[in-house]
């Protein structure tokens, strides 16, 4: 018997003339792992919410949903609460209580379980999720990754048969995200809970999924194995979702090979070796490596110059920044990468003037503005347009001048069609752009970005990259802190690693990544034996095409 059976599901939100879901039929079998993907706003969340009785949105509904053979609507509230787990996007908002242990017990308390049973269940759950060492901590003091792990654990403690996750890793940095996804995979494989998850990070999700469902404008256009999904999305004309595919699959698709696509880096490497052996023409020994990229930055002017920066949060702690030196040129897009807690964000805050370093100096040629990690931290108005006007509050200009500026910014941020929308109704990527627009309006010459690609799908990332490019071409300098290696490799002018309070190995991306062994893109790892300087998937594809 399937865990969930959906037949001809149609749904329309009140006051909307477009259907949010159209003719959706799908099965979730026992212990299935299904990844739902699609562009932002395609109806993924709406679909997932229909899978749990008390999460269903209000609106016009037609079609049938069965949970283990019974109509979902007839399921008792108690059963629904216990047997279907639901984890949402934001790690903070889902936490209800002040202590980790209490949060884990919350669901069981609701069900009226007795103290002894709760204790046992909480104990075993905490052990499974590796929470035991911070079991008594306050929830407000946890990191984002830990918070989301608590959210997952506090659902799993009720022993659900079906686990629904709505973009659970969108707010996490890639390292925490990867750990989270691995835990979800473990739940599926070791406990047998069926999983339905919507996700942007397909690179990892694809290797875990039994089935991939692709949604577009409320329809489910595809639902089958990940290998087939890769082929489906690679078909011309390219679906927007193509850019979200794992790099290995993209490279495979671009070479127009037939057959089953490789999924993991390892499979990709094996495939590429065979492929090159088979197809390489003539001079097999001397592959042409990727060409050096053309330089965007010509100016030698320095925009930010940092010398001997030292900072520690309080007297007793160690130095987060230790004699940090850094030079960023004008009009450059500079990316800083590095592990969690190394002090990347601290460095950015020091440059942005949010903290005052104890020693060293920062010279900046021009006004600095910083984009906060959560765009909501900037929103005060009720429409996107007014939001931008608010940014000009202290600017001395006539109304018509202001209106013109806003118009230009809307254009630049590709938000024209959303000018009357409430900022909170925008998707993550759109909010990010609106916040960037606000920052842009105060005419900064240097923009600091902290994880700007967090929670964005591949398509929105491309849009964002385009906007950043436009800004740098106007002479604005961008200093970005990011974990997103693919994004940094594809777009930045120079990359650097931040480690132990210092900026190490600042270099052009092709040099930077080809010099690294662990800290490099999947494409580079897959093809480095043949094309060490090819860092992005496009470069690898070019090299392969040249070689054959």
């Amino acid at each position, binding site marked *: 018997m399937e865990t969930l059976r959906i037949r001809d599901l149609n749904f329309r939100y009140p006051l909307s003339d477009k259907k949010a879901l159209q003719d959706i039929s799908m099965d979730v079998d026992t212990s299935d792992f299904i990844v739902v993907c699609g562009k932002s706003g395609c109806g993924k969340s709406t679909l997932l919410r229909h899978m*749990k009785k*008390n*999460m269903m949105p209000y609106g016009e509904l037609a079609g049938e949903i069965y949970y283990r053979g019974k109509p979902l609507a007839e399921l008792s*509230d*108690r059963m629904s*609460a*216990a047997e279907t787990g*639901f984890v*949402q996007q934001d790690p*903070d*908002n*889902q*936490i*209800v*209580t*002040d*202590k980790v*242990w*209490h949060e884990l*017990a*919350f*669901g*069981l*308390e*609701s*069900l*009226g379980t*007795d*103290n002894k049973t*709760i*204790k046992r269940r*909480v104990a075993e759950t905490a052990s499974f999720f590796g929470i035991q060492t911070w079991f*008594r901590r306050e*929830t*407000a*003091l946890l990191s984002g990754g830990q918070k989301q792990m608590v*959210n997952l654990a*506090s*659902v799993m403690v*009720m022993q659900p048969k079906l686990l629904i996750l709505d973009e659970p890793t969108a707010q996490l940095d890639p390292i925490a995200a990867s750990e989270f996804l691995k835990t979800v995979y473990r739940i599926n494989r070791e406990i047998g809970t069926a999983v339905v998850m919507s996700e942007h990070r397909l690179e990892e999700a694809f290797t875990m999924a039994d089935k991939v469902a692709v949604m577009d404008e409320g329809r489910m256009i595809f639902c089958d194995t990940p290998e087939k999904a890769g082929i489906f999305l690679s078909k011309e004309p390219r679906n927007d979702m193509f850019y979200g595919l794992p790099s290995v699959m993209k490279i495979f698709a671009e070479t127009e090979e037939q057959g089953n696509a490789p999924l993991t880096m390892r499979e990709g490497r094996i495939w590429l070796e065979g492929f090159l052996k088979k197809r390489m023409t003539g001079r097999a020994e001397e592959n042409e490596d990727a060409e050096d990229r053309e330089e965007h930055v010509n100016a030698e002017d320095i925009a930010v110059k940092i010398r001997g920066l030292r900072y520690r949060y309080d007297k007793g702690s160690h130095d987060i920044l230790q004699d940090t030196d850094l030079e960023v040129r004008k009009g450059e897009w500079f990316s800083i990468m590095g592990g969690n807690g190394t002090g990347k964000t601290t460095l950015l805050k020091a440059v*942005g*003037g*949010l903290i005052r370093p104890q020693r060293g100096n920062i010279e900046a040629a021009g006004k600095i*503005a*910083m*984009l*906060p*990690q*959560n765009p*909501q*931290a*900037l*929103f*005060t108005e009720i429409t996107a347009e007014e939001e931008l006007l608010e*940014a000009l509050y*202290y600017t001395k200009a006539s109304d018509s001048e202001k209106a013109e500026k806003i118009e230009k910014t809307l254009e630049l941020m590709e938000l024209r069609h959303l000018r009357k929308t409430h900022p909170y109704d925008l998707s993550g990527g759109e909010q990010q752009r609106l916040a960037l627009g*606000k*920052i842009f309006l*105060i005419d900064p010459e240097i923009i*600091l970005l902290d994880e700007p690609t967090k929670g964005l799908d591949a398509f929105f990332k491309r849009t964002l990259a385009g906007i950043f490019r436009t800004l740098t071409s106007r002479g604005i300098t961008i200093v970005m802190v990011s974990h997103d290696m693919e994004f940094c490799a594809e777009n930045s002018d120079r990359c650097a690693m931040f480690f132990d309070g210092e900026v190490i190995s600042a270099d052009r991306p092709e040099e930077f990544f080809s010099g690294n062994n662990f800290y490099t893109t999947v494409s580079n790892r897959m093809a480095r034996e043949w094309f060490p300087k090819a860092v992005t998937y496009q470069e690898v594809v070019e090299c392969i095409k040249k070689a054959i």
Partner: protein
Amino acid sequence: MVRPYREVKILFRDGLGENSEFAGYHPAVNLTYFVFVIGITMFSTNPLFLTASFAAAWIYSVILRGKKAVRTNILFMIPVMVVMTLINTFFTHNGSTVLFYVNTNRITLEALVYGFAASVILSAVIIWFTCFNTVMTSDKFIYLFGRTWPVFGLLLSMTFRFIGLLKNRYREISDGQKCMGRDAGKSFMMKARQITKEISILISWSLEASIETADSMEARGYGLKGRTFFSLFRFTAKDRAVMIWTVIFGGISLAGCILKKTVMYYYPSLEFPQPDMMTAVTLTAFVLLIFIPVIIDIYGEIKWKRSESEI
């Protein structure tokens, strides 16, 4: 080898705080103890009881909070006591022993002594409450309320959660504003406008976020009938022993208190209580009651140090 002097020195530096031995006992034990001690202290005017309570409060607060307690106890309590004594001396004219006259007002010995005694009561109670604050952490409160009324326990827990959350969020917002070059500025109007803006962002953000919190609660069955309340506290044999001790000696002290053995009359003239049998019993019981945490904490600390040095 235990060297008591060094142990005590270390103990006094920062205090044991909420990790002290007594604070590790069951919340019901902690609460019962403080109810007895603070209750009886408030109604005791007998100098013997006052001295005992005041001394115990001092020692316990120093054990709990170390140097900080010494500082507040001296810098805050002594001025309070002096002022209170003076006020009573100069504004109360009861009493038979006149010391001197200010204008036509009698300044009496009784008023002076009573003012001092009252100030000792007040500062003892205040110090007891600082100890109470350190020992009774938020989760103990939540537990005590949650046991009798689960929903209220949850409400408290959510409140404590929201304090942390809102603090973090507000910091993020004000950083975000600074990122835009919006510093609070110098003039009062600018500052007021900026703070209003930040609070308005905080409210709309939090309201938006609370929808998700409500979803998450409902998804985990909030609102079903028969909610229980979970806690990590266990009532062990140790707790039972200390509870019995507290109730026996607290009970005896309370009985003595009701029988007016802990009071002394100051007006019209100082009337020192006769040292009768019942007073002696009450005092002994009271001392055995109020020094419970001091004994438990010091004993626990010595045991801990000993086991540490054995490793």
